[in-house]
C-alpha cells in the first residue's frame, strides 16, 4: 500500500509530459491511476478486491469485486436434511455462527408451526447470541484499531475474546463452529457450572469496555483518523441496503431485536445505542455501547435463567435421549428416522430476520414438504452493507479508505457465502 501511494505521487508529479497513462481528465487536471486493492490486502479482512481509480490521493471511483470466497452454501443446503443444514449455517460468517444458527432454527420452527420452544432454550439462545455479538465486536474493535495504528487494543480485545471462545467450547465442544442452536432447542444440555463461568466473565467485562474506551478516546491519532471520516447520508445508506450498527450510527433507531422481537428478546431490558454523527467514530461508539448492552442482557439471562427443559418435546424432530434409546423401542425408531431420513417440514415459505452483530440476517426458507429445504436464501448483512462501499470511498482520500472499510465491519465469507 505504501509503495502504491508513492507511485501515485510520481504519476501526479510528471503529469504534463506523460501521454501513456489513460487520457481521462480528472478534477485536478492530473491523470488518473488504477489501483488494485486486494484481493490479499490485510485491511480487507478477507478476500476482497477493490479496483480504485485515483486522482493523486483522491479516490474517484471504487468498484468492489467479490466472490472469491463463494462456496455455494445455498446450493449445498438443498441436498442436506433440515438438521444437517445447521452445520452449514455456522460457516457463513465465522464471527456470528450462533446468530446464523439462531435465524435458521427460528425460520424452520416457524415453518413447522406446532413446535413450542421451552423458555430456558429461548433464554439460552439469547444469552449465547449476545456472547456472539461481544465476540464479533471485540474482533472488530481489535482489528479496526490495528488497521488505524492503535496496536494495544488488539491484544486487550483478543484476551476477552479468548474467554468467550472458551465459554462456547464449554457449551458446545467447539470454539467457533458451534452448531449449538438446533431446530427444536439446543444441541446439548447446558454444561454443569456454566453459571460460575459466565458470572465470572460478566462481572469483569464492563470494566474492560471502559479500558478500551480509555485507550482510544484519549488517543489523538485515533480521533483524527475517525472523526468526520466516512460520512454517507442516512437516506443513501437505507437505499443501499445497509443495516445494523452503521444505520444506528447515522441516527436511526432500528434494531430487529426491538422492532420484531424473537426468541423472547421482549423480556429483556436493554437500550439501542444511537449516534447522529454518522462517521467512523460514531460507528465505533455505537458498537462499544452495544457491548455494554449485550453484557447487560447476558447478566439478566444469567440471573433470571428459567428452569425446565432445554429442548422442545417433539419426538419427531428432536433426537431422543441416549438413555431412552437403550430402553424404549419408540425412541430408537425416532432416532433412526431422524438420522437416516430426517424430519419433514410442511410445505410453505418464511422469512425470518434477526439482528446479527453486523445487521439484519434474514433467511428466506422454502419447503416443499420433504426432508430437505427446497430453497434457502441467506440475506446476509455483509452483502447488503458492502454495497455502500463506493459511497463511502468515492471523493475521499485513499488514506481514509482503511478507516472507512474497517468501520463497515464486513466478513467476506458472509458476503460470498
Amino acid at each position: 500500500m505504501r509503495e502504491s501511494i508513492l507511485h501515485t505521487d510520481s504519476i501526479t508529479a510528471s503529469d504534463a509530459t506523460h501521454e501513456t497513462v489513460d487520457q481521462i481528465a480528472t478534477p485536478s487536471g492530473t491523470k488518473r491511476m488504477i489501483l488494485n486493492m486486494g484481493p490479499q490486502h490485510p485491511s480487507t479482512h478477507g478476500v476482497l478486491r477493490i479496483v480504485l481509480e485515483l486522482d493523486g490521493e483522491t479516490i474517484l471511483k471504487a468498484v468492489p469485486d467479490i466472490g472469491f470466497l463463494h462456496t455455494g452454501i445455498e446450493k449445498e443446503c438443498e441436498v442436506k436434511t433440515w438438521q444437517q443444514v445447521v452445520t452449514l449455517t455456522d460457516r457463513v460468517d465465522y464471527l456470528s455462527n450462533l446468530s446464523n444458527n439462531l435465524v435458521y432454527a427460528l425460520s424452520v420452527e416457524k415453518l413447522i408451526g406446532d413446535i413450542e420452544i421451552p423458555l430456558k432454550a429461548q433464554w439460552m439462545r439469547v444469552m449465547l447470541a449476545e456472547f456472539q455479538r461481544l465476540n464479533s465486536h471485540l474482533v472488530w474493535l481489535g482489528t479496526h484499531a490495528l488497521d488505524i495504528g492503535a496496536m494495544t487494543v488488539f491484544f486487550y480485545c483478543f484476551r476477552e475474546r479468548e474467554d468467550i471462545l472458551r465459554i462456547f467450547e464449554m457449551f458446545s465442544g467447539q470454539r467457533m463452529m458451534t452448531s449449538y442452536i438446533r431446530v427444536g432447542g439446543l444441541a446439548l444440555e447446558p454444561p454443569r457450572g456454566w453459571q460460575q463461568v459466565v458470572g465470572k466473565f460478566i462481572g469483569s467485562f464492563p470494566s474492560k469496555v471502559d479500558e478500551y474506551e480509555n485507550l482510544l478516546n484519549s488517543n489523538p491519532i485515533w480521533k483524527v483518523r475517525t472523526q468526520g471520516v466516512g460520512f454517507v447520508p442516512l437516506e443513501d445508506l437505507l437505499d443501499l441496503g445497509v443495516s445494523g450498527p452503521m444505520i444506528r450510527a447515522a441516527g436511526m433507531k432500528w434494531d430487529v431485536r426491538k422492532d420484531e422481537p424473537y426468541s423472547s428478546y421482549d423480556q429483556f431490558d436493554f437500550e439501542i445505542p444511537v449516534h447522529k454523527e454518522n462517521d467512523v467514530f460514531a460507528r465505533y461508539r455505537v458498537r462499544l455501547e452495544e457491548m455494554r448492552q449485550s453484557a447487560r442482557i447476558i447478566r439478566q439471562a444469567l440471573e433470571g435463567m428459567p428452569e425446565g427443559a432445554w429442548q422442545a418435546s417433539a419426538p419427531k424432530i428432536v433426537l431422543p435421549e441416549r438413555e431412552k434409546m437403550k430402553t424404549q423401542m419408540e425412541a430408537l425408531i425416532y432416532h433412526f428416522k431422524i438420522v437416516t431420513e430426517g424430519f419433514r417440514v410442511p410445505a410453505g415459505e418464511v422469512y425470518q430476520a434477526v439482528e446479527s452483530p453486523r445487521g439484519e440476517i434474514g433467511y428466506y426458507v422454502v419447503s416443499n414438504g420433504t426432508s430437505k429445504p427446497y430453497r434457502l436464501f441467506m440475506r446476509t448483512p455483509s452483502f447488503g452493507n458492502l454495497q455502500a462501499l463506493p459511497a463511502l470511498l468515492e471523493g475521499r482520500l485513499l488514506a481514509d479508505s482503511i478507516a472507512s472499510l474497517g468501520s463497515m465491519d464486513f466478513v467476506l465469507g458472509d458476503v460470498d457465502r
Partner: protein
Amino acid sequence: MLPDILKDHAAAAALEAALPGVIAGGHSQHNEPTLWIDPYRIVEVCRFLKDKQQFVRLSGITAVDWLPADPRFEVVYLLHSLQRNQRLRLKCWIAEAEPAIDSVFSVWRTADWYEREVYDMFGIRFRNHPDLTRILMPSDWEGHPLRKDYPVHGHKYTYQDE
C-alpha cells in the same frame, strides 16, 4: 385480484386501489403477507410501494426454481417498511422461454447486487440493469449454479480428475 385474507392489509389494499390489476394473487402464510405481481409492472409497483407506502428498504431479491413447472422461476422481492414496522413479499413468475424481468435498480440502489446475484445463480436477466454481470462466480463460468438442473457435484470437474 387481492385475496380476502389481505383485504385488511393497508399497503396491499392501497396498491390494488392505485394500480388495479397488478396483483395476481397472494397469501398470508405464517402472518407474512405475500403478493404475486404482474412481472411487466414490477417497477411501477415497487415505485408506488416505496414512495407512497413507506417501504423504504429492500431487504433482498432472490429467486426460486420450480423445475419442471411452467412458468419455471419465481423472483422474490423482500420489502421492509421501517415506519410501519412491516415486511411485505412480492413475487413474480418468470417463464423459462424468456427469463427476464425489469430491473428495480431505479427504485432501490441496493437492487444492483441482488439482481446480479440472481442473474449469476439463476440466469434470469434484468432489463435496464446498469451492469448485469456475474458477481459471485468467475466471469467466464458456464451455467447457473442454483438452477435445479445444475448438479451439486461434477458439473465440470469431478474428484477423479484431481
